[in-house]
């Protein structure tokens, strides 16, 4: 069984620390997505797992074997690159078979495996083409096929879909999900696109500045983000934030108010909080609703009517702009005043350190 374990993995380039101690456990067959803004070290982490970068400190275990100094070819991994990295002078068939050829696999076995992979990816008719004669989506498939042929325990993907156009990206995303279901291998997938992360992952690892922010299932991250960064990063459209002060605490209930919001009662973990503390309130655009007696008011600055829902940019009193998604079609004018309420207390409180205060 090919689980992975990362123990306090670090990476520095000279004096610059890029990965600052990552601990992670990945069990066999999981689809894990590393997500985070550009430059946060996702690729570096993946490349360390692949064996393309040295590990500065910490331990990497793959399938119960310490792999810090194991050659990439002996790690039981395959990798799909963002640029596809197809060998331009080889046909699709040869691209698929290159790894097997190097491993001195007998010709008939090789041929069978190549044709199997081509069948899975529905590209049997393209086997004689050179990469330059393929479209972007087909090249992507070749890159995946090259990984499949090797029958690795762990697939590594580095932003594999970012060079495709939007429609194709959605298709390929589904294909990858199917592939994972069919092959049942462990997959580690790097992306900066949180929608890809939400749709594909069994488990998401949110990275920022070389530090793991949170690990969890997509819904966990959406519903119970551990800190401001995760709350802002996961979910589309983004969560709205505003600064508030605590007026009163009553058991698991706090009442907060601020420049943008009338006194509002929320449930939160109040340990260590006191009256008068400044905290950050966050609420998702979908959790706001138009309510004439609501606690939040602002002026409409932009309206997008999509028919089934209406996206409104609301300029609040403090000058912050919130995005609100209202059900159904609404006729709203620019500059019009709008009162909003928070649905079912669906708002979160983040303390001064940026940690979320969810009810236990």
């Amino acid at each position: 069984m090919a689980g992975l374990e990362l123990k306090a993995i670090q990476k520095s380039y000279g004096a610059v620390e890029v990965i600052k101690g990552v601990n992670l456990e990945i069990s066999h067959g999981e689809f894990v997505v590393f997500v985070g803004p550009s430059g946060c070290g996702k690729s570096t982490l993946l490349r360390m797992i692949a064996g393309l970068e040295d590990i500065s400190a910490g331990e990497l275990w793959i399938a119960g074997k310490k792999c810090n100094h194991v050659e990439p070819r002996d790690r039981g991994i395959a990798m799909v690159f963002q640029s596809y990295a197809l060998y331009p002078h080889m046909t699709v068939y040869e691209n698929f078979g290159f790894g097997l050829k190097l491993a001195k696999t007998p010709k008939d076995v090789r041929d069978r495996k190549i044709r199997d992979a081509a069948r899975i990816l529905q590209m049997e008719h393209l086997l004689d083409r050179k990469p330059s004669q393929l479209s972007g989506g087909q090249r992507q498939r070749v890159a995946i096929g090259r990984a499949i042929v090797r029958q690795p325990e762990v697939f590594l993907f580095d932003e594999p879909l970012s060079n495709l156009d939007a429609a194709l990206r959605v298709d390929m995303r589904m294909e990858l999900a199917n592939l994972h279901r069919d092959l049942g291998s462990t997959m580690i997938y790097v992306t900066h696109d949180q929608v890809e992360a939400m749709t594909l992952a069994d488990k998401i690892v949110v990275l920022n500045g070389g530090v793991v922010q949170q690990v969890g299932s997509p819904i966990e991250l959406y519903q119970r983000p551990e800190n401001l960064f995760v709350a802002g990063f996961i979910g589309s459209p983004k969560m709205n934030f505003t600064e508030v002060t605590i007026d009163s605490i009553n058991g698991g209930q706090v009442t907060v108010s601020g420049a943008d919001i009338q006194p509002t009662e929320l449930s939160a973990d109040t340990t260590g909080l006191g009256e008068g503390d400044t905290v950050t309130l966050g609420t998702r655009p979908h959790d706001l609703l138009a309510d004439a007696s609501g606690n939040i008011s602002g002026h409409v600055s932009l309206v997008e009517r999509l028919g089934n829902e209406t996206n409104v940019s609301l300029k609040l009193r403090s000058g912050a702009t919130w995005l609100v998604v209202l059900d159904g079609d609404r006729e709203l004018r620019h500059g019009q005043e709008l009162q909003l309420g928070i649905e079912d207390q669906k708002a979160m409180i983040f303390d001064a350190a940026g940690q979320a205060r969810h009810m236990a």
Partner: protein
Amino acid sequence: MSLIRRHWLSVVAILVSFVVFVIPFIFIVLTAMKDKRQSALLDFSWPEKFQLWENIVDVITTRNWQLLTAFINSTILTVASVTLLVVFAAMVGFVLQRRRTRWNGLINFLILAGLMIPPAIVPTIWLLQAMGLFAKLHGLILIEVAYHLPFSILLYRAFIATIPKDLDEAAIIDGARPLDVFFRIIMPLLWPVTVTNIVVQSVTIFNDFTNPLYYLPGRGNETVQLTLYNFQSQFNTSYHLLFTNILLITIPPLIVFLFFNRQIVAGVTAGAVKG
């Protein structure tokens, strides 16, 4: 009028290359056909008597078939030197481009130095003598490789920089060892530069006059360019034989060039449309 205006540059180019390349060649061919008396005039005239075949036989059999020995020597020299050059230059270029170490600056300096500093003949001869390589064909091969290596390395390194590093890494993941990466992935993609390199270096080395003159003296060691001496002397030069000799030793480079010329063009355009 507009035809002239549009094409005058091409016409000028054709005229210039005709004067520079074709007229001298015609002169060589004509003189090679003449007899000794007429050729001594060194003029651009029609041969009175055609004796190309006699001249060829004369040239080849001179000094106990020396020209054949020279052809064999030059061919060995060229093939061996160019092979070593291509392999070493591509390997050095690959490592220099791909692996960043603190030695890179020094190595680059040495390469540039090799390109710029004129070779010192006498110390080189001492060194060759000390190593027992002086007046040996393999010694000269090493000399030719050394003198032409810097330029080839620069050529390869620049081209390797255009090959994405992802390709190397994909191959490594696929299980390729360093030599596999080089010979199965990088080298095939270098084919356009390799062809250019082969053509340029083999013509240069085949036609080299000075290095064989300095480093490969002795009987049986002649290279083709040195055979030209057979027909010149202070008092008496057989121009008809000299030019026949020139004609004969111009043919192999010409064949190399014609053979690879199409490949050069094909290689360049393949790179251009690959996208």
